[in-house]
């Protein structure tokens, strides 16, 4: 089981938990902008240190967080390795640092905020868009579902990899990608059906 922390709320009483949802999401957005705009390895390392500090402050659990970050850690290593080979170490550090700090802060936000509050905050923020035909409640729910889909897709990916391995096809990208795509779509449709059946996307 891939128990990803993304989309997984863990109740707590730290300052990070008690911060209102709006400011929390706004901080995350500002952090994302800063990370993308500021270049160079040193700022990337500072961002990473800041994200780690907030994670520790929120006490979301070192082991669970490490487990949640593992797939991203793998991606960051691949990207950094590529940059190291093509360009040099400063860019490698920057790419890995930026990616890890962003994902880590997103993990902290989702782990310290009840999903219901996230839906409400997004719904409120999208309220002005109602006059352009956007249904704010729907946008909130869609974003919550995307968060919840991350661990699901990781689960499906690891099952697909096992199935391909069992058939000796682990080197054939088709044996991985085709079933992964089909099963992800099937899962999305089943979730859509379930939401309709529960009357959540009606009216």
């Amino acid at each position, binding site marked *: *089981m891939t*128990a990803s922390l993304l*989309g*997984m*709320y*863990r*109740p707590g009483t730290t300052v990070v938990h008690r911060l209102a949802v709006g400011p929390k999401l706004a901080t995350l957005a500002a952090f994302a902008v800063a990370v993308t705009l500021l270049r160079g390895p040193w700022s990337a390392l500072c961002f990473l240190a800041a994200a780690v500090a907030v994670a520790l402050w929120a006490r979301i659990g070192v082991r669970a967080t490490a487990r949640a970050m593992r797939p991203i850690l793998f991606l960051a290593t691949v990207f950094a390795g590529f940059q190291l080979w093509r360009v040099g170490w400063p860019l490698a550090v920057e790419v890995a640092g930026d990616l890890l700090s962003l994902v880590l802060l997103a993990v902290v936000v989702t782990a310290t905020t*009840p*999903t*219901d509050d996230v839906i*409400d905050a997004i719904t409120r923020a999208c309220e002005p868009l109602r006059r352009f035909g956007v249904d704010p409640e729907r946008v909130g729910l869609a974003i*919550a*579902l995307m*968060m*919840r889909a991350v*661990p*699901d897709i990781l689960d499906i990916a690891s099952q697909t990899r096992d199935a391909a391995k069992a058939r000796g096809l682990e080197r054939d990208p088709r044996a991985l990608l085709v079933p992964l795509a089909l099963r992800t779509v099937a*899962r999305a449709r*089943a*979730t859509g*059906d*379930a*939401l*309709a*059946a*529960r*009357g*959540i996307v*009606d*009216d």
Partner: protein
Amino acid sequence: MAQIVLDGVTVTAPGDDETTILGETSLRLTERRIALIGGNGSGKSTLARLLNGLTAPATGSVRVDDLDTVRDGAAVRRRVGFVFTDPDSQLVMPTCAEDVALSLRRTRLPKAERRERAVEILGTYGLAHLADVSVHSLSGGQKQLLAVAGVLATDPDVIVADEPTTLLDLHNTRRIADLLFGLRQQVVLVTHDLELATRCDRALVIAGGVIAFDGDPAEAAASYRESVSR
């Protein structure tokens, strides 16, 4: 009990109206416990999904207490709850309490009360201690129990359950079955478990998209067994 009426209903494959997957069917379902049995691909899920408008008929109409499942879809779905085989596709929120609270969103209760009510509902099904636990970490039986709790949270009049016990072990099958059979609601149960089917008041056997038998569950089970051994 609710009045579920199918009137000259046919269902065709989506995107291909030449292929019929449910032949013309007219039914009046008013019994408290109704079983749908039949082989893989016979059309059980298709018939079940018609009952709350998840599938729309190509011809004819399906009405629940005089509400049309296509025209009054939202109202029908408030009345008819649906339990799927795989609870993973039904559970959409990260924790148990949040998932039940999601069902309560349409009740317009204030948020704090929603959560309180959700925990209360979990308690009814012996799941109160799992309120803040990740849905991912539950066992299959607990997941299905939670899925049923989420459906019952809004107090529908009818529960349609499409093979709710197929993925469960004997113990959990019994637990879910006892829960369903104990409900005040009308229950339409799709199952491969003939023992469960014979606990119902009426059973329909479906074969190749048509109703091959309709009546007493014991006779239905016998007719289904016979059709398989032929």
